[in-house]
């Protein structure tokens, strides 16, 4: 608000024919109401649509008498989720374990290699092709090989999940490390900063938004990698994750349980996405354009 230089006289106010302050506050009220409505609608609209879709699904199944071994209704899936929770939760845990361990190794390896790349052009030139080859080769195609060569199925699954999660972190972080402002780099040089200081105080912070962007992609990919590898491992999967449950339920034509496992996989993916978005928001909200609220 600008400073009020001159107070309007009483005569002015009378001439305006009303209380300006009152109109102001009414407008502000309306604005606040609209903002609140929008906030509520933001949640209500998607939930309502989702519920409607589920209801329609249930209705179609019920109306046409679709047998549950072809297409179970959502209520049956929910029921299976509850009844089989003992087996399913165990499998969920196994899949989560593979996913998060792979993600952790991908973060450490991806960031570590990116730092190495940015320190030495030669290391980057010689190793980057390998990273690209790993990235472009479909994981379904190499998973069987890895399962043959690696004794422990658990470790083989981990390697598969890691391969797909690793690349976005590596390439994004490399890009970020090289995107530090040139004049800031000049400044660091002027003040005699060594490589380590430049890395620690300039390049790593500059790479943070890029890394977090990569993490968002890598989180989802780690889960996909873990599931694909479990499928490739098939019944050999001793750990028996969620993909194994899907395969197993498929053999038994237990379609509701297949859907239940699928629901758990989707929810896990959504949770990983939300968690990485939240992390990104928390780390960047003070300074990065992607996370700060636009003034309006």
């Amino acid at each position, binding site marked *: 608000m600008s400073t009020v230089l001159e107070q309007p006289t009483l005569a002015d106010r009378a001439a305006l024919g009303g209380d300006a302050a009152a109109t102001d506050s009414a407008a502000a009220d309306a604005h606040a109401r609209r903002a609140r409505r929008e906030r509520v609608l933001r949640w209500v609209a998607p939930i309502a649509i989702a519920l409607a879709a589920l209801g329609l699904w249930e209705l179609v199944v019920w109306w046409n008498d679709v047998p549950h071994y072809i297409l179970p209704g959502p209520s049956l899936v929910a029921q299976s989720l509850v009844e089989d929770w003992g087996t399913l939760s165990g499998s969920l845990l196994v899949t989560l374990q593979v996913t998060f361990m792979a993600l952790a190794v991908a973060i450490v390896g991806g960031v570590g290699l990116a730092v190495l790349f940015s320190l030495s052009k030669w290391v980057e030139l010689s190793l980057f092709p390998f990273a690209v080859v790993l990235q472009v080769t479909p994981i379904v195609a190499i998973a069987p090989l890895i399962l043959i060569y690696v004794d422990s199925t658990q470790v083989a699954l981990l390697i598969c999940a890691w391969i797909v999660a690793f690349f976005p972190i590596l390439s994004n972080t490399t890009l970020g490390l090289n995107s530090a402002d040139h004049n*800031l780099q000049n400044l660091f040089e002027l*003040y005699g900063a060594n490589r380590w200081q430049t890395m620690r105080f300039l390049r790593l*912070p500059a790479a943070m938004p890029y890394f977090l962007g990569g993490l968002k992609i890598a989180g989802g990919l780690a889960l996909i990698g873990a599931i694909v590898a479990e499928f490739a491992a098939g019944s050999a999967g001793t750990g028996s994750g969620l993909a194994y449950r899907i395969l197993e339920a498929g053999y038994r034509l237990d379609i509701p349980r297949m859907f239940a496992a699928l629901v758990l996989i989707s929810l896990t993916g959504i949770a990983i996405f939300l968690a990485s978005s939240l992390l990104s928001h928390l780390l960047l909200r003070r300074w990065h354009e992607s996370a700060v609220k636009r003034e309006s």
Partner: protein
Amino acid sequence: MTVDVLARRSTTPKPTLVELQGVHKTFANGTVALENLNLAVGEHEFVSLLGPSGCGKSTALRLISRLAGLSAGRLVWSGEVAVGDIGFVFQEPTLMPWASVFDNVYLPLRLQRMSRRAVGARVDEVLDLVGLREFSNAYPRELSGGMKMRASIARALVTEPKLLLMDEPFAALDEITRFRLNDDLLRLWAGRRFTVVFVTHSVFESVYLSERILVMAARPGRIVEEIRVDAPYPRDDAFRTSEPYNAWCREASAALKRAMGES
């Protein structure tokens, strides 16, 4: 013209702080940025480099600060140059967006491994000097353009440099903010008595601020004229509207026009 320059230089000589002698700078792509540049800057002096864009002003600053190497010629300092003896202010504030104002100003000291505890008071003092003490914890994006530039100046001054190099620092700011920062800069310079080499393409700014203006021509970059602005400090708005100020502006304008005609 050379005779003219030499004649003027004889007035009130200050001991030389740094000197470029017969400097050439050719870039890897063959661009000749500077040719036979001779430039001496006295201790505690305020010198402006005035010239059209592309005449090598930035390059000259980079050579003086050793951010770039000479192709030929000599760079002579009057004494030892330690880290922190040179402060640099760029056209953009060039602050780290992820760090608070305090941390940005603390950076040069941090890079010299001085602990926050040991030099915190010094950082606060510099922030006080530029009027940013209460914005110590703010992030750059929360500041206006002028305040960011103040933070950038504070960072350059925190090491108590002998020489402050400024590359068109106020060119991106609105006129009101620029005038205010001009005054603040003169105030800081009067108090501390460091040396300033100030790059600008504004005739008015160079006359208002400096004791000496070196006018440069482009292709190849060189100094073609020197103008002494013998007005006393402190200078203020009264100076900005005075007749001598206008005369100097006319003189500098004419020199700049001649310099642009030469290239």
